[in-house]
Protein backbone atom coordinates (compact mmCIF):
# COMPACT_ATOMS: atom_id res chain seq x y z
CA UNK A 1 0.00 0.00 0.00
CA UNK A 2 1.27 3.40 -0.88
CA UNK A 3 2.01 5.52 2.11
CA UNK A 4 4.77 7.33 3.90
CA UNK A 5 8.33 6.04 3.86
CA UNK A 6 10.84 7.37 6.37
CA UNK A 7 14.46 6.98 5.26
CA UNK A 8 16.05 5.87 8.51
CA UNK A 9 19.58 6.16 9.86
CA UNK A 10 21.09 3.43 11.99
CA UNK A 11 24.11 4.11 14.21
CA UNK A 12 25.80 1.17 15.95
CA UNK A 13 22.71 -1.01 15.56
CA UNK A 14 20.34 1.61 16.99
CA UNK A 15 17.85 3.99 15.41
CA UNK A 16 19.30 7.52 15.16
CA UNK A 17 17.31 10.21 17.05
CA UNK A 18 16.49 12.23 13.87
CA UNK A 19 14.80 9.11 12.44
CA UNK A 20 12.56 8.97 15.54
CA UNK A 21 11.62 12.60 14.86
CA UNK A 22 10.86 11.84 11.19
CA UNK A 23 8.69 8.90 12.27
CA UNK A 24 6.77 11.22 14.61
CA UNK A 25 6.24 13.60 11.68
CA UNK A 26 5.14 10.67 9.51
CA UNK A 27 2.62 9.60 12.16
CA UNK A 28 1.04 13.04 12.38
CA UNK A 29 0.70 13.21 8.58
CA UNK A 30 -0.78 9.71 8.63
CA UNK A 31 -3.32 10.79 11.24
CA UNK A 32 -4.86 13.08 8.60
CA UNK A 33 -4.55 10.81 5.56
CA UNK A 34 -4.84 7.35 7.10
CA UNK A 35 -1.64 6.30 5.30
CA UNK A 36 0.72 3.68 6.67
CA UNK A 37 4.19 4.67 7.86
CA UNK A 38 7.12 2.52 6.85
CA UNK A 39 10.83 2.95 7.59
CA UNK A 40 13.85 2.05 5.46
CA UNK A 41 16.76 0.73 7.55
CA UNK A 42 20.00 0.22 5.74
CA UNK A 43 23.46 -0.67 7.01
CA UNK A 44 25.90 -3.42 7.84
CA UNK A 45 24.56 -4.08 11.37
CA UNK A 46 20.91 -3.24 11.89
CA UNK A 47 20.77 -4.64 15.44
CA UNK A 48 17.58 -3.72 17.27
CA UNK A 49 16.78 -0.80 14.97
CA UNK A 50 13.71 -2.36 13.28
CA UNK A 51 11.98 -3.02 16.62
CA UNK A 52 13.01 0.44 17.83
CA UNK A 53 11.51 1.99 14.68
CA UNK A 54 8.24 0.11 15.15
CA UNK A 55 8.09 1.24 18.78
CA UNK A 56 8.79 4.79 17.57
CA UNK A 57 5.84 4.81 15.14
CA UNK A 58 6.58 2.66 12.08
CA UNK A 59 4.00 0.15 10.81
CA UNK A 60 6.56 -1.64 8.70
CA UNK A 61 10.35 -1.78 8.41
CA UNK A 62 12.10 -2.44 5.11
CA UNK A 63 15.65 -3.61 5.73
CA UNK A 64 18.80 -3.98 3.66
CA UNK A 65 21.72 -5.43 5.61
CA UNK A 66 25.01 -5.80 3.75
CA UNK A 67 28.62 -5.80 4.94
CA UNK A 68 29.46 -3.42 2.07
CA UNK A 69 27.44 -0.75 3.89
CA UNK A 70 29.89 -0.60 6.80
CA UNK A 71 31.54 2.46 5.22
CA UNK A 72 29.40 5.55 4.64
CA UNK A 73 29.49 4.92 0.87
CA UNK A 74 26.83 7.22 -0.48
CA UNK A 75 26.59 5.50 -3.87
CA UNK A 76 25.78 2.16 -2.23
CA UNK A 77 23.32 3.69 0.22
CA UNK A 78 21.59 5.45 -2.68
CA UNK A 79 21.22 2.18 -4.58
CA UNK A 80 19.80 0.43 -1.50
CA UNK A 81 17.33 3.22 -0.69
CA UNK A 82 16.27 3.38 -4.32
CA UNK A 83 15.48 -0.35 -4.18
CA UNK A 84 13.43 0.14 -1.01
CA UNK A 85 11.53 3.01 -2.62
CA UNK A 86 10.78 0.76 -5.61
CA UNK A 87 9.47 -1.94 -3.24
CA UNK A 88 7.44 0.41 -1.02
CA UNK A 89 6.11 2.78 -3.76
CA UNK A 90 5.48 5.56 -1.24
CA UNK A 91 3.50 8.77 -1.89
CA UNK A 92 5.66 10.63 0.61
CA UNK A 93 9.34 10.07 1.43
CA UNK A 94 10.72 11.71 4.60
CA UNK A 95 14.43 12.12 5.28
CA UNK A 96 16.40 13.91 7.98
CA UNK A 97 18.73 16.73 7.09
CA UNK A 98 21.59 15.22 9.09
CA UNK A 99 25.16 15.33 7.77
CA UNK A 100 24.47 12.14 5.82
CA UNK A 101 20.98 13.26 4.83
CA UNK A 102 22.31 16.51 3.34
CA UNK A 103 24.10 14.39 0.76
CA UNK A 104 21.58 11.59 0.42
CA UNK A 105 18.29 13.51 0.17
CA UNK A 106 18.83 15.62 -2.98
CA UNK A 107 20.35 12.69 -4.82
CA UNK A 108 17.64 10.21 -3.82
CA UNK A 109 14.96 12.74 -4.82
CA UNK A 110 16.67 13.16 -8.19
CA UNK A 111 16.69 9.38 -8.71
CA UNK A 112 12.97 9.37 -7.92
CA UNK A 113 12.55 12.07 -10.57
CA UNK A 114 11.44 14.84 -8.23
CA UNK A 115 12.58 18.00 -6.45
CA UNK A 116 13.29 17.87 -2.75
CA UNK A 117 11.50 19.94 -0.12
CA UNK A 118 14.69 20.81 1.75
CA UNK A 119 15.32 21.58 5.43
CA UNK A 120 11.67 21.57 6.51
CA UNK A 121 10.68 22.89 9.93
CA UNK A 122 7.07 21.85 9.49
CA UNK A 123 5.00 19.71 7.15
CA UNK A 124 1.24 19.98 6.90
CA UNK A 125 -1.33 18.49 4.57
CA UNK A 126 -3.18 21.11 2.56
CA UNK A 127 -6.87 20.36 2.96
CA UNK A 128 -7.93 21.35 -0.56
CA UNK A 129 -5.23 19.51 -2.53
CA UNK A 130 -4.13 16.83 -0.10
CA UNK A 131 -0.54 17.90 -0.92
CA UNK A 132 2.17 18.71 1.58
CA UNK A 133 2.94 22.28 2.50
CA UNK A 134 6.50 22.53 3.77
CA UNK A 135 7.69 25.45 5.88
CA UNK A 136 11.40 26.09 5.55
CA UNK A 137 13.87 28.80 6.50
CA UNK A 138 15.53 30.71 3.66
CA UNK A 139 17.88 33.71 3.61
CA UNK A 140 19.76 32.38 6.63
CA UNK A 141 16.54 31.93 8.61
CA UNK A 142 15.46 35.56 8.13
CA UNK A 143 12.55 34.52 5.95
CA UNK A 144 10.20 31.53 6.15
CA UNK A 145 8.97 30.03 2.89
CA UNK A 146 6.00 27.74 2.41
CA UNK A 147 6.56 25.36 -0.52
CA UNK A 148 4.46 22.82 -2.34
CA UNK A 149 5.72 20.07 -4.63
CA UNK A 150 3.85 18.89 -7.72
CA UNK A 151 6.04 15.77 -7.98
CA UNK A 152 5.26 12.19 -7.04
CA UNK A 153 6.44 11.01 -4.63
CA UNK A 154 6.68 14.12 -2.48
CA UNK A 155 10.14 14.03 -0.90
CA UNK A 156 10.98 16.16 2.14
CA UNK A 157 14.07 16.47 4.34
CA UNK A 158 13.33 17.52 7.92
CA UNK A 159 15.62 19.69 10.01
CA UNK A 160 16.69 17.65 13.04
CA UNK A 161 15.59 18.57 16.57
CA UNK A 162 12.60 20.62 15.48
CA UNK A 163 10.07 17.94 16.30
CA UNK A 164 9.86 15.77 19.42
CA UNK A 165 9.95 11.98 18.87
CA UNK A 166 7.05 9.85 20.11
CA UNK A 167 7.37 8.08 23.45
CA UNK A 168 8.56 4.56 22.51
CA UNK A 169 5.68 2.05 22.68
CA UNK A 170 7.04 -1.50 22.87
CA UNK A 171 3.53 -2.94 22.39
CA UNK A 172 3.29 -1.62 18.81
CA UNK A 173 3.42 -4.34 16.17
CA UNK A 174 4.91 -4.14 12.71
CA UNK A 175 6.20 -6.22 9.88
CA UNK A 176 9.91 -6.46 9.02
CA UNK A 177 10.48 -6.87 5.28
CA UNK A 178 14.01 -7.57 4.03
CA UNK A 179 14.62 -6.16 0.54
CA UNK A 180 17.05 -7.95 -1.76
CA UNK A 181 19.51 -5.58 -3.44
CA UNK A 182 22.54 -6.71 -5.40
CA UNK A 183 25.14 -4.31 -4.04
CA UNK A 184 28.57 -4.31 -5.58
CA UNK A 185 31.67 -2.53 -4.27
CA UNK A 186 32.23 -1.24 -7.82
CA UNK A 187 29.08 0.92 -7.50
CA UNK A 188 31.08 3.28 -5.29
CA UNK A 189 32.44 6.04 -7.50
CA UNK A 190 34.39 7.54 -4.60
CA UNK A 191 37.03 5.75 -2.52
CA UNK A 192 37.29 6.64 1.14
CA UNK A 193 41.03 6.53 1.86
CA UNK A 194 41.12 7.39 5.54
CA UNK A 195 39.51 9.47 8.23
CA UNK A 196 41.17 11.95 10.60
CA UNK A 197 38.99 12.64 13.60
CA UNK A 198 40.14 14.87 16.41
CA UNK A 199 39.40 13.42 19.82
CA UNK A 200 36.19 15.02 21.01
CA UNK A 201 37.09 17.35 23.86
CA UNK A 202 34.24 18.31 26.14
CA UNK A 203 30.51 18.17 25.48
CA UNK A 204 29.26 17.55 21.94
CA UNK A 205 27.65 20.77 20.79
CA UNK A 206 24.65 19.20 19.09
CA UNK A 207 23.68 17.28 22.26
CA UNK A 208 24.40 19.97 24.84
CA UNK A 209 21.48 21.44 26.77
CA UNK A 210 23.57 24.56 27.39
CA UNK A 211 25.89 26.11 24.82
CA UNK A 212 28.22 29.03 25.51
CA UNK A 213 29.52 30.89 22.46
CA UNK A 214 31.91 33.77 21.90
CA UNK A 215 32.38 36.14 19.00
CA UNK A 216 34.29 39.06 17.58
CA UNK A 217 33.54 41.16 20.65
CA UNK A 218 35.95 39.05 22.73
CA UNK A 219 38.78 40.65 20.79
CA UNK A 220 41.22 37.74 20.75
CA UNK A 221 41.84 34.09 21.60
CA UNK A 222 42.71 34.58 25.30
CA UNK A 223 39.17 35.38 26.56
CA UNK A 224 37.97 32.03 25.28
CA UNK A 225 39.82 30.47 28.25
CA UNK A 226 37.41 32.31 30.51
CA UNK A 227 34.51 31.15 28.36
CA UNK A 228 35.76 27.56 28.72
CA UNK A 229 35.77 28.02 32.48
CA UNK A 230 32.14 29.15 32.31
CA UNK A 231 31.25 26.22 30.04
CA UNK A 232 32.98 23.81 32.43
CA UNK A 233 30.99 25.17 35.39
CA UNK A 234 27.70 24.76 33.52
CA UNK A 235 28.51 21.43 31.85
CA UNK A 236 28.00 23.31 28.61
CA UNK A 237 29.29 22.91 25.07
CA UNK A 238 31.39 25.73 23.67
CA UNK A 239 31.14 27.34 20.25
CA UNK A 240 31.97 30.51 18.39
CA UNK A 241 30.80 32.79 15.64
CA UNK A 242 32.31 32.77 12.19
CA UNK A 243 34.18 36.01 12.94
CA UNK A 244 36.08 34.34 15.80
CA UNK A 245 36.87 31.31 13.63
CA UNK A 246 37.96 33.38 10.64
CA UNK A 247 40.24 35.39 12.93
CA UNK A 248 41.92 32.13 13.90
CA UNK A 249 41.07 32.47 17.63
CA UNK A 250 39.36 29.07 17.86
CA UNK A 251 39.26 25.88 15.74
CA UNK A 252 36.94 25.79 12.71
CA UNK A 253 34.80 23.03 14.22
CA UNK A 254 33.65 25.48 16.92
CA UNK A 255 31.76 27.52 14.36
CA UNK A 256 28.02 27.81 14.86
CA UNK A 257 25.97 29.22 12.02
CA UNK A 258 24.91 28.84 8.44
CA UNK A 259 28.27 27.44 7.37
CA UNK A 260 29.01 25.75 10.68
CA UNK A 261 27.11 23.69 13.19
CA UNK A 262 23.47 23.90 14.19
CA UNK A 263 22.69 23.78 17.90
CA UNK A 264 19.36 23.59 19.70
CA UNK A 265 20.13 23.88 23.42
CA UNK A 266 17.72 24.98 26.14
CA UNK A 267 20.09 27.86 26.90
CA UNK A 268 22.36 29.57 24.36
CA UNK A 269 24.60 32.08 26.11
CA UNK A 270 26.40 34.43 23.75
CA UNK A 271 29.29 36.74 24.61
CA UNK A 272 30.41 39.39 22.15
CA UNK A 273 28.28 38.01 19.32
CA UNK A 274 26.38 40.58 17.26
CA UNK A 275 23.85 38.10 15.90
CA UNK A 276 24.37 38.40 12.14
CA UNK A 277 21.81 36.46 10.18
CA UNK A 278 24.28 33.77 9.14
CA UNK A 279 25.10 33.11 12.81
CA UNK A 280 21.46 33.00 13.92
CA UNK A 281 20.83 30.34 11.26
CA UNK A 282 22.79 27.95 13.48
CA UNK A 283 21.16 28.73 16.83
CA UNK A 284 17.73 30.26 16.26
CA UNK A 285 16.02 27.11 17.52
CA UNK A 286 17.59 27.44 20.99
CA UNK A 287 14.83 27.72 23.62
CA UNK A 288 16.37 30.71 25.41
CA UNK A 289 19.09 32.98 24.03
CA UNK A 290 21.09 35.28 26.31
CA UNK A 291 23.21 38.15 24.99
CA UNK A 292 26.17 39.83 26.64
CA UNK A 293 27.24 42.60 24.31
CA UNK A 294 28.47 46.19 24.52
CA UNK A 295 26.26 47.40 21.69
CA UNK A 296 22.61 47.80 22.71
CA UNK A 297 21.71 48.07 19.01
CA UNK A 298 23.23 44.67 18.12
CA UNK A 299 20.79 42.30 16.44
CA UNK A 300 21.44 39.62 19.07
CA UNK A 301 19.24 41.55 21.56
CA UNK A 302 16.29 41.22 19.17
CA UNK A 303 16.75 37.44 19.29
CA UNK A 304 17.39 37.15 23.02
CA UNK A 305 15.20 36.55 26.06
CA UNK A 306 17.73 38.08 28.49
CA UNK A 307 20.40 40.61 27.75
CA UNK A 308 23.28 42.41 29.40
CA UNK A 309 24.54 45.59 27.81
CA UNK A 310 28.11 45.76 28.97
CA UNK A 311 31.72 44.75 28.76
CA UNK A 312 32.35 41.02 28.99
CA UNK A 313 35.57 41.75 30.92
CA UNK A 314 33.55 42.71 33.99
CA UNK A 315 30.29 40.84 33.33
CA UNK A 316 31.84 37.42 32.76
CA UNK A 317 33.75 37.24 36.10
CA UNK A 318 30.53 38.36 37.83
CA UNK A 319 28.53 35.66 36.08
CA UNK A 320 31.10 32.98 36.92
CA UNK A 321 31.17 34.11 40.57
CA UNK A 322 27.35 34.17 40.62
CA UNK A 323 27.19 30.59 39.37
CA UNK A 324 29.80 29.44 41.92
CA UNK A 325 27.73 31.07 44.68
CA UNK A 326 24.68 29.08 43.56
CA UNK A 327 26.46 25.75 43.93
Amino acid at each position, binding site marked *: MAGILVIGEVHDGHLAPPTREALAMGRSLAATSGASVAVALIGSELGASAQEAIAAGADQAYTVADALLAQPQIDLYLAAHQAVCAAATPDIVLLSRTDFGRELAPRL*ACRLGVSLLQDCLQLETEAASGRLIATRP*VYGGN*VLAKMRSAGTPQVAALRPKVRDPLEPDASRQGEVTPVAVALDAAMAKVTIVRQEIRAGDGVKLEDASIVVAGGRGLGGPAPFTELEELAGLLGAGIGAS*RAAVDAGWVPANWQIGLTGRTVTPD*LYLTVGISGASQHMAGCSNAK*VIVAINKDREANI*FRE*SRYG*VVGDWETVLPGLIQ*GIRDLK
Partner: protein
Amino acid sequence: MAALNIIVTAKQVIDHEIPASALTIDATSTQVTAPSSFKPIVNGFDDYALEAALRLKEAGGATITVLSVGSQFDVNIMRKTLALGADRLILCQDPAFANLADSFTTARIIAAAIHKVGEFDLVLCGRQASDWDNAQVPLVLAELLDLPCITLAQKIEVSDGKVTVEQVVLDGYRVAEAGLPALITVTNELGQPRYPALRNIMAANRKRPTTWTAQDLDLDPAMLTPQLEVVEVAFPSKAQACEIIEGEDGGEVGRRLAQVLHEAGLI
Protein backbone atom coordinates in the same frame (compact mmCIF):
# COMPACT_ATOMS: atom_id res chain seq x y z
CA MET B 1 50.08 16.56 -16.90
CA ALA B 2 47.80 18.42 -19.27
CA ALA B 3 46.12 21.51 -17.90
CA LEU B 4 42.77 20.86 -16.29
CA ASN B 5 39.43 22.03 -17.60
CA ILE B 6 37.52 23.25 -14.57
CA ILE B 7 33.93 24.45 -14.50
CA VAL B 8 32.90 26.57 -11.51
CA THR B 9 29.23 27.27 -10.86
CA ALA B 10 28.36 30.70 -9.46
CA LYS B 11 25.09 32.36 -8.58
CA GLN B 12 24.22 36.03 -8.29
CA VAL B 13 22.40 36.62 -5.00
CA ILE B 14 21.26 39.34 -2.63
CA ASP B 15 24.21 40.29 -0.40
CA HIS B 16 23.94 38.11 2.73
CA GLU B 17 25.63 40.79 4.83
CA ILE B 18 22.80 43.29 4.40
CA PRO B 19 20.73 43.71 7.54
CA ALA B 20 17.70 41.42 7.63
CA SER B 21 15.56 44.50 8.25
CA ALA B 22 16.41 45.76 4.73
CA LEU B 23 14.86 42.71 3.05
CA THR B 24 11.35 43.13 1.69
CA ILE B 25 8.73 40.76 0.36
CA ASP B 26 7.02 41.46 -2.96
CA ALA B 27 3.30 42.03 -3.51
CA THR B 28 2.67 38.40 -4.45
CA SER B 29 4.33 37.27 -1.17
CA THR B 30 6.49 34.79 -3.07
CA GLN B 31 9.76 36.69 -3.63
CA VAL B 32 12.33 38.23 -1.33
CA THR B 33 13.77 41.48 -2.62
CA ALA B 34 16.39 43.97 -1.53
CA PRO B 35 16.37 47.72 -2.21
CA SER B 36 18.30 48.65 -5.35
CA SER B 37 20.80 50.59 -3.21
CA PHE B 38 22.22 47.21 -2.17
CA LYS B 39 24.26 45.64 -4.96
CA PRO B 40 23.95 41.90 -5.48
CA ILE B 41 27.03 39.73 -4.99
CA VAL B 42 28.41 36.46 -6.26
CA ASN B 43 27.14 33.90 -3.73
CA GLY B 44 29.77 33.84 -0.96
CA PHE B 45 29.98 30.04 -0.98
CA ASP B 46 30.80 30.09 -4.70
CA ASP B 47 33.82 32.33 -3.94
CA TYR B 48 35.35 29.29 -2.21
CA ALA B 49 34.71 27.08 -5.26
CA LEU B 50 36.43 29.63 -7.51
CA GLU B 51 39.28 29.97 -5.00
CA ALA B 52 39.78 26.19 -5.08
CA ALA B 53 39.90 26.32 -8.90
CA LEU B 54 42.44 29.16 -8.83
CA ARG B 55 44.67 27.18 -6.45
CA LEU B 56 44.56 24.21 -8.84
CA LYS B 57 45.38 26.57 -11.72
CA GLU B 58 48.42 27.83 -9.80
CA ALA B 59 49.48 24.31 -8.88
CA GLY B 60 49.38 22.69 -12.30
CA GLY B 61 47.64 24.87 -14.82
CA ALA B 62 43.94 24.99 -15.59
CA THR B 63 41.37 26.66 -17.78
CA ILE B 64 38.54 27.91 -15.59
CA THR B 65 35.03 28.42 -16.94
CA VAL B 66 32.52 30.10 -14.64
CA LEU B 67 28.93 29.17 -15.34
CA SER B 68 25.88 30.98 -13.98
CA VAL B 69 22.12 30.73 -14.47
CA GLY B 70 19.61 33.54 -14.04
CA SER B 71 17.11 35.82 -15.71
CA GLN B 72 18.94 39.07 -14.99
CA PHE B 73 22.58 39.68 -14.26
CA ASP B 74 24.63 42.61 -13.09
CA VAL B 75 27.47 41.80 -15.49
CA ASN B 76 29.95 43.90 -13.53
CA ILE B 77 29.28 41.81 -10.43
CA MET B 78 29.74 38.56 -12.32
CA ARG B 79 32.94 39.90 -13.96
CA LYS B 80 34.57 39.72 -10.56
CA THR B 81 35.16 36.03 -11.34
CA LEU B 82 37.20 37.02 -14.42
CA ALA B 83 39.14 39.59 -12.41
CA LEU B 84 40.04 36.84 -9.95
CA GLY B 85 41.49 34.66 -12.71
CA ALA B 86 38.68 32.72 -14.40
CA ASP B 87 39.32 32.40 -18.15
CA ARG B 88 35.75 32.42 -19.36
CA LEU B 89 32.38 33.54 -18.02
CA ILE B 90 29.19 31.97 -19.38
CA LEU B 91 25.89 33.49 -18.34
CA CYS B 92 22.89 31.28 -19.05
CA GLN B 93 20.36 34.05 -19.20
CA ASP B 94 16.72 33.79 -20.19
CA PRO B 95 13.43 35.14 -18.87
CA ALA B 96 12.48 31.48 -18.44
CA PHE B 97 15.26 31.19 -15.83
CA ALA B 98 13.55 33.61 -13.40
CA ASN B 99 12.65 32.68 -9.83
CA LEU B 100 14.48 29.40 -9.73
CA ALA B 101 13.43 28.14 -6.31
CA ASP B 102 13.46 24.63 -7.73
CA SER B 103 17.01 23.25 -7.58
CA PHE B 104 16.11 20.35 -9.86
CA THR B 105 15.28 22.76 -12.70
CA THR B 106 18.41 24.83 -12.05
CA ALA B 107 20.56 21.69 -12.12
CA ARG B 108 19.01 20.65 -15.44
CA ILE B 109 19.89 24.02 -16.98
CA ILE B 110 23.47 23.81 -15.70
CA ALA B 111 23.75 20.23 -16.93
CA ALA B 112 22.67 21.36 -20.41
CA ALA B 113 25.23 24.17 -20.31
CA ILE B 114 27.99 21.77 -19.23
CA HIS B 115 27.11 19.48 -22.14
CA LYS B 116 27.46 22.49 -24.42
CA VAL B 117 30.83 23.41 -22.88
CA GLY B 118 31.99 19.91 -23.78
CA GLU B 119 35.16 18.52 -22.21
CA PHE B 120 35.86 19.05 -18.53
CA ASP B 121 37.76 17.40 -15.69
CA LEU B 122 36.20 18.96 -12.63
CA VAL B 123 33.00 20.76 -11.70
CA LEU B 124 33.49 22.82 -8.53
CA CYS B 125 30.48 24.23 -6.70
CA GLY B 126 29.87 26.21 -3.53
CA ARG B 127 28.20 24.12 -0.84
CA GLN B 128 24.97 26.14 -1.03
CA ALA B 129 23.61 29.53 -2.07
CA SER B 130 23.04 32.06 0.67
CA ASP B 131 19.55 33.02 -0.54
CA TRP B 132 17.47 29.85 -0.72
CA ASP B 133 19.95 27.71 1.25
CA ASN B 134 18.92 24.63 -0.68
CA ALA B 135 22.36 23.00 -0.95
CA GLN B 136 20.97 20.75 -3.67
CA VAL B 137 22.06 21.92 -7.12
CA PRO B 138 25.57 20.36 -6.97
CA LEU B 139 24.27 16.99 -5.78
CA VAL B 140 21.50 16.84 -8.37
CA LEU B 141 23.97 17.98 -11.02
CA ALA B 142 26.29 15.08 -10.11
CA GLU B 143 23.33 12.71 -10.55
CA LEU B 144 22.31 14.21 -13.90
CA LEU B 145 25.87 14.09 -15.24
CA ASP B 146 26.54 10.71 -13.58
CA LEU B 147 29.70 12.02 -11.91
CA PRO B 148 31.50 10.93 -8.75
CA CYS B 149 30.53 13.49 -6.11
CA ILE B 150 32.56 14.56 -3.08
CA THR B 151 31.06 17.19 -0.78
CA LEU B 152 32.53 19.80 1.58
CA ALA B 153 36.10 19.89 0.33
CA GLN B 154 38.66 21.82 2.36
CA LYS B 155 41.57 20.77 0.11
CA ILE B 156 41.70 19.44 -3.46
CA GLU B 157 44.63 17.88 -5.30
CA VAL B 158 44.70 16.39 -8.79
CA SER B 159 47.27 13.92 -10.05
CA ASP B 160 47.40 10.89 -12.32
CA GLY B 161 43.87 11.40 -13.59
CA LYS B 162 42.31 11.34 -10.16
CA VAL B 163 41.26 13.88 -7.59
CA THR B 164 42.06 13.59 -3.87
CA VAL B 165 39.91 15.60 -1.52
CA GLU B 166 39.96 16.39 2.18
CA GLN B 167 36.28 16.29 2.98
CA VAL B 168 35.14 18.00 6.18
CA VAL B 169 33.21 15.73 8.54
CA LEU B 170 32.17 16.28 12.14
CA ASP B 171 35.30 16.84 14.26
CA GLY B 172 37.73 16.17 11.46
CA TYR B 173 38.08 15.26 7.84
CA ARG B 174 38.01 12.29 5.54
CA VAL B 175 40.34 11.75 2.59
CA ALA B 176 38.35 10.66 -0.47
CA GLU B 177 39.46 9.92 -4.01
CA ALA B 178 37.68 9.72 -7.34
CA GLY B 179 38.51 9.43 -11.02
CA LEU B 180 38.05 12.41 -13.35
CA PRO B 181 35.73 13.93 -14.30
CA ALA B 182 34.23 14.55 -10.87
CA LEU B 183 32.04 17.08 -9.08
CA ILE B 184 33.20 18.58 -5.79
CA THR B 185 31.50 21.01 -3.43
CA VAL B 186 33.83 23.35 -1.58
CA THR B 187 33.38 24.59 1.98
CA ASN B 188 34.71 27.60 3.87
CA GLU B 189 37.35 25.52 5.69
CA LEU B 190 39.31 25.87 2.42
CA GLY B 191 40.47 29.26 3.71
CA GLN B 192 39.92 32.87 2.78
CA PRO B 193 39.27 33.50 -0.93
CA ARG B 194 41.55 36.11 -2.54
CA TYR B 195 40.54 39.60 -3.62
CA PRO B 196 40.94 40.78 -7.21
CA ALA B 197 43.79 43.19 -7.98
CA LEU B 198 42.73 46.57 -9.35
CA ARG B 199 44.49 46.11 -12.70
CA ASN B 200 42.76 42.74 -13.14
CA ILE B 201 39.40 44.34 -12.42
CA MET B 202 40.09 46.86 -15.18
CA ALA B 203 41.22 44.14 -17.59
CA ALA B 204 38.13 42.07 -16.77
CA ASN B 205 35.90 45.04 -17.56
CA ARG B 206 37.02 44.77 -21.18
CA LYS B 207 36.08 41.07 -21.41
CA ARG B 208 32.65 40.09 -22.64
CA PRO B 209 30.86 37.17 -21.08
CA THR B 210 29.28 34.53 -23.32
CA THR B 211 25.49 34.51 -23.04
CA TRP B 212 23.41 31.42 -23.71
CA THR B 213 19.60 31.45 -23.83
CA ALA B 214 17.25 28.52 -23.22
CA GLN B 215 17.14 28.11 -26.99
CA ASP B 216 20.94 28.07 -27.26
CA LEU B 217 20.90 25.27 -24.71
CA ASP B 218 18.21 23.39 -26.62
CA LEU B 219 16.08 23.26 -23.49
CA ASP B 220 12.54 22.02 -23.77
CA PRO B 221 10.29 24.60 -22.05
CA ALA B 222 8.31 21.77 -20.45
CA MET B 223 11.49 20.71 -18.66
CA LEU B 224 11.73 24.18 -17.14
CA THR B 225 8.35 23.99 -15.45
CA PRO B 226 9.28 23.81 -11.77
CA GLN B 227 7.87 21.05 -9.59
CA LEU B 228 8.24 23.22 -6.54
CA GLU B 229 5.98 26.17 -6.05
CA VAL B 230 6.53 28.93 -3.52
CA VAL B 231 3.16 29.25 -1.81
CA GLU B 232 4.20 32.13 0.41
CA VAL B 233 7.22 33.81 1.95
CA ALA B 234 6.97 35.73 5.22
CA PHE B 235 9.14 37.15 7.97
CA PRO B 236 9.10 35.04 11.12
CA SER B 237 7.25 36.69 13.99
CA LYS B 238 9.53 37.85 16.78
CA ALA B 239 7.10 38.24 19.62
CA GLN B 240 9.49 38.10 22.53
CA ALA B 241 10.94 41.09 24.28
CA CYS B 242 14.46 41.05 25.63
CA GLU B 243 14.71 41.63 29.38
CA ILE B 244 17.79 43.74 29.98
CA ILE B 245 19.52 42.95 33.28
CA GLU B 246 20.90 46.07 34.92
CA GLY B 247 23.07 46.90 37.91
CA GLU B 248 25.75 49.16 39.43
CA ASP B 249 28.63 47.61 37.50
CA GLY B 250 29.48 44.70 35.24
CA GLY B 251 30.29 42.35 38.10
CA GLU B 252 26.95 42.93 39.75
CA VAL B 253 25.07 42.53 36.47
CA GLY B 254 26.90 39.24 35.85
CA ARG B 255 25.89 37.94 39.30
CA ARG B 256 22.29 39.06 38.70
CA LEU B 257 22.26 37.27 35.36
CA ALA B 258 23.30 34.06 37.16
CA GLN B 259 20.37 34.58 39.58
CA VAL B 260 17.86 35.24 36.79
CA LEU B 261 18.94 32.17 34.81
CA HIS B 262 18.81 30.05 37.97
CA GLU B 263 15.32 31.26 38.83
CA ALA B 264 14.20 30.50 35.25
CA GLY B 265 15.42 26.93 35.76
CA LEU B 266 18.00 27.26 33.00
CA ILE B 267 21.14 26.66 35.10
